[in-house]
């Protein structure tokens, strides 16, 4: 008898079929990775096991935990089960905790709900659980509030709540997707040690193949509510009998083929950033003291040549986005200069004129929130035209819209549609078209592929590579995802605490990192091949 057996689980929400005959099985002490892209039904499967389905859901099939059929359980019995026998950890640690309760109370609540223990005893167990997840009492007393903690620390609190009563099964739904790589590595290590110590089953839901290859003993691959392939990790990856598994595998390792020099002219810089400083004023400590400053960007210098693709990597809070805003001259700098083609673009107290602004364009991370939903595509992508001295006439405007759309792989007829008619990947293409239409010399891609599924991400990377090859446009590619930066850039800069700590040819930096922080980042990044090799080596050793 397995710890959890899901058989023929079919589910629909308001008559819209979501899951079809899903079968899953997990043993105690085992990690099951459930992999799929957005909309594949992996989170709904987890919520079905928890019986926390959205309103209007109907399901059939069987879910058995330790041999007990959950479909026969009443809501009251399920409440007794949740948190006690099954714990769950969610994706977004920033919002998963109640902001008006202390972390101690929130962890202790799990214990109070399920056992008759006193408040004091519950707090003692809560303290133990927090210690176990690496939040020691000296820095993290029980009376701290969630807003005092970082994302990684909050995720540890959520894990502490889920494991406080040592459940038999833990479900973690994208537990590290919102976290930095080094934090991700720590949280994954923590989850693994908890599985070993408590002989707990862990269902790890993720879109990241490299993470499951490292963590999971068995893997199930989901697509459109169906498990297309399932099996033991190494053999599944070695065989990959289903075409979707292969496609997923290829997409996550995808490196666009490049024209070797792709029009790069190494002699002339497009943009030169010279000792740029960005300070933020902190709130005053008292009424009469001058406000302190936080230096988000500390004398950063860099140059990007014509046609060159430069990557900027670093973890959240390192100053990447602040630097982006400074380069776009959206914020005034407190020191240094930014020059565009040798001409002053932005310096202390001075922004650029319109003519120069059109030379730098940007594509943001979230394709769902970066468009006005009431405008049609033609209006959206011609917005930068206001930077031109002479507005193009109707004919030229249409021609340029058509060129921009076909450049990004869309149809000129798409110009008359609204943005909600497009998928996330298509929207990101439209965002790129909006940046391209004004023929800039430099496009800043701020986490431009981070919100996309791997297969879409591979397509957008191909598109970006192709555009850079054909149009000799330069990119500043900002990302926390090292594998993506490695796939598309010529040169890479590593940023930490407002400073560039390492810079060099991308391949060289990745192969032979010099700075300890770069080494740390690379070590924390899960790599599919290495994870599989390590797993095989362990299997042979046993």
């Amino acid at each position, binding site marked *: 008898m397995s710890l959890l057996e899901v058989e023929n689980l079919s589910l629909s929400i308001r008559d819209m079929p979501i899951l079809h005959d899903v079968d899953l099985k997990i043993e105690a002490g085992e990690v099951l990775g459930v992999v799929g892209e957005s909309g594949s039904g992996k989170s709904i499967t987890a919520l079905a096991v928890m019986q926390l389905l959205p309103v209007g859901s109907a399901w059939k099939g069987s879910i058995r935990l330790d041999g007990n059929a959950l479909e026969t359980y009443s809501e009251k019995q399920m409440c007794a089960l949740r948190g006690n026998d099954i714990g769950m950890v969610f994706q977004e640690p920033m*919002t*998963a*905790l109640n902001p*008006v309760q202390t972390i101690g109370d929130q962890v202790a609540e799990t214990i109070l709900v399920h056992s008759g223990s006193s408040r004091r005893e519950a707090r003692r167990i809560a303290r133990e659980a927090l210690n176990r997840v690496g939040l020691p009492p000296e820095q993290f007393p029980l009376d701290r509030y969630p807003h005092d903690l970082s994302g990684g620390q909050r995720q540890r609190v*959520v894990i502490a709540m889920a494991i406080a009563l040592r459940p038999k099964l833990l479900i973690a739904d994208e537990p590290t997707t919102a976290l930095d790589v080094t934090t991700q590595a720590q949280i994954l290590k923590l989850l693994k040690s908890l599985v070993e110590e408590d002989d707990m089953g862990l269902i790890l839901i993720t879109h990241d193949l490299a993470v499951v290859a490292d963590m999971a003993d068995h893997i199930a691959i989901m697509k459109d509510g169906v498990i297309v392939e399932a099996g033991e990790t190494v053999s599944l990856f070695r065989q990959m009998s289903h075409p979707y598994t292969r496609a997923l595998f290829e997409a996550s390792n995808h490196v666009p083929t490049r024209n070797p020099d792709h029009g790069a002219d190494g002699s002339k810089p497009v943009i030169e950033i010279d000792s740029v400083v960005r300070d933020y004023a902190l709130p005053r400590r008292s009424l009469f003291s001058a406000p302190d400053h936080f230096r988000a960007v500390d004398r950063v210098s860099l140059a990007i040549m014509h046609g060159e693709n430069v990557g900027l990597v670093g973890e959240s809070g390192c100053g990447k986005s602040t630097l982006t805003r400074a380069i776009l001259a959206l914020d005034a700098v407190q020191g240094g200069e930014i020059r565009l083609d040798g001409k002053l673009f932005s310096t202390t107290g001075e922004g650029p004129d319109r003519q120069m602004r059109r030379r730098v364009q940007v594509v943001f991370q979230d394709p769902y929130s970066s468009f006005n939903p009431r405008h049609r595509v033609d209006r959206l992508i011609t917005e930068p035209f206001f930077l031109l001295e002479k507005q193009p006439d109707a004919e030229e405007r249409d021609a340029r819209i058509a060129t921009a759309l076909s450049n990004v792989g869309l149809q000129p007829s798409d110009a008359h549609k609204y943005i909600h008619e497009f998928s996330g990947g298509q929207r990101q293409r439209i965002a790129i078209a909006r940046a391209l239409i004004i023929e800039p010399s430099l496009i800043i891609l701020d986490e431009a592929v981070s919100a996309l599924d791997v297969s879409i991400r591979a397509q957008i990377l191909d598109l970006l590579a192709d555009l850079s090859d054909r149009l000799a446009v330069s990119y500043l590619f900002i990302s926390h995802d090292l594998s993506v930066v490695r796939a598309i850039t010529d040169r890479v800069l590593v940023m930490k605490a407002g400073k560039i700590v390492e810079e060099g040819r991308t391949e060289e930096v990745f192969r032979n990192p010099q700075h300890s922080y770069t080494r740390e980042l690379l070590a924390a990044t899960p790599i599919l091949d290495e994870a599989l090799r390590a797993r095989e080596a362990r299997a042979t050793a046993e």
Partner: protein
Amino acid sequence: MLPFLIKRLISLTLSLLAASLVIFFVIEVVPGDPASFMLGLNASPDTVAALRESLGLNASVPLRYWQWITGLVQGEFGISYTYKVPVGELIADRFWVSMPLSIYALTLSTLIAFPVGVIAAARRNSPADVSIMGVTQLGIAVPNFWFAMLLVLFFAVSLRWFSAGGFPGWEAGFWAGMKALTLPAIALALPQASILARVMRSSLLDTLGEDFVRTARAKGLTHRQALWKHALRNALIPVLTIIGLQFSFLLAGAIIIENVFFLPGLGRLVFQGITQRDLIVVKSVIFLLVFAVILVTFLVDITYAVVDPRLRRRSA
């Protein structure tokens, strides 16, 4: 918490100072001569001059402001031009009607709105929710003076449980006073409760959709426990804002209800002051109301900080 309180207190004092300046300048300085304004078009120059003298209008503007402010602090508001009695006494009498009435109405509306809003949110789209939404819609739409007249017809004229109007004064005893205020308080509370219940419902529905409520459910809390222990407190901020606004409104905005029930309240006093051009009364009542509004805002700010620990640090 202490630096937060001190900061809020400083901002309270500054707001009061600014408000007093605005009131003083608008009423005393800007529209020409208050004395001739109070006496009307047909007054003889001698009468105007006498009134100017007795009002102390011949002193310099800063001095008059200073005298007014120091008077206010000592509780001396001046002598009413029409009633010929100290304004302080006039206001005090009316204040002890309006203030209890406002608190009474607000307590009623909160006591009704909280459970009603929570039930509607907890059973979204159920028959209970639909009927609550319908009734509150009606409560907002019905004019409160009309509702007040219905109350009088039913409870005073037919059932004879309450008197149809008037206020016996607190000398007649606490319960007699409260009884006289009951119908007006109900009339005032109905629309307020309807608005508040709707705010409570929508705010709670928003919070029930938050991730931390799902986390609470994953810990094994029932739907009801998650609502009471996690969603409710987080849903309170918008509700508190509305309560603060409603209290300020009730204090001076009850004038129609005061008229329906013949209550000697602040609303009626200021209305009479305006029609009789008794600027001393108007100025003092306005200042008192401004003071009340600022004080209520201060209290609401403090309650925010009690409810939400994040606000304590941000503002401190």
